């Protein structure tokens, strides 16, 4: 347990965050962009829990932050999927390049 330093866990969460960022940049489909955002939120949660466990083991603040982030991410995903379904109903497509009415 103690052989793994904190920096290795931070390496994993950093790599996961930038994988999510790559997906957000390259994908044009709203559902896959939402999946990339979920990956980024999860990497933040790993950071909170790891910092709490390694640097401040007498407190529980990081655990609570990840709990609230998970809750808000669930609410965000539900609202996003409602918007996606509504967009599909009006445009017959969920590609971000097809929804450009408010762009200019």
């Amino acid at each position, binding site marked *: 347990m103690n052989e793994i330093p904190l920096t290795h866990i931070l390496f*994993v969460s950093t790599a996961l965050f930038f994988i999510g960022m790559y*997906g957000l*940049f390259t994908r044009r*489909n709203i559902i896959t962009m939402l999946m990339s955002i979920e990956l980024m939120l*999860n990497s933040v*949660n790993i950071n909170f*829990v790891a910092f709490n466990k390694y640097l401040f083991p*007498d407190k529980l603040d990081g655990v609570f932050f990840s709990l609230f982030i998970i809750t808000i991410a669930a609410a965000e995903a539900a609202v996003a999927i*409602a918007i996606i*379904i509504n967009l599909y109903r009006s445009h017959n497509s969920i590609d971000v390049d097809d929804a450009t009415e408010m762009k200019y």
Partner: protein
Amino acid sequence: MNISSIIFYAISALILGAGILAVTSVKIFRSAIWLLFSLIGIAALYFWMQVEFIAAIQIVVYVGGIVILIIFSIFLTQQSGKDLPKPAISKMVFSALAALFGIAFTFNLINHYGFDNTSSAPFNASVNEIGMQMLSTSSHGFILPFEVVSMLLLASMIGCIVIAMKSSTSDTIPLNNKKD
């Protein structure tokens, strides 16, 4: 190199490999399944860090809730067997360069910052401790965010129903008929 470190590196490889496949797979349904594996790996990482409550919440909310919601919306909105359009090569190259630059920069920062831990108290994240502190009204309690987030969940639930409701008077229906 004992068994605990080997388990950590195996879990990390699972998370990162499934994450890369989730953002690069050309079939959207496979992409969702790889996301599922990545989230399971993150739950395993929480178990490895001995925060079992967060791991259980991760499985219940993400694996059991959000991924199922995403899969349902894939089924509702498009043909899941069809390939996604490939992004342009220049966009892929520049996004990969940006991501690699960010990874290198952050790795460098993490490597050179010495994290010194301030206390050596044992880490106790049992459900008992979390529950007591979550609902305590003292200065380190989290009762106010707990109540606020319950209001947020109610608001988002009502908002989802209102947004996704099919109304016969709105102008979305004529647009839809025009395309058919």
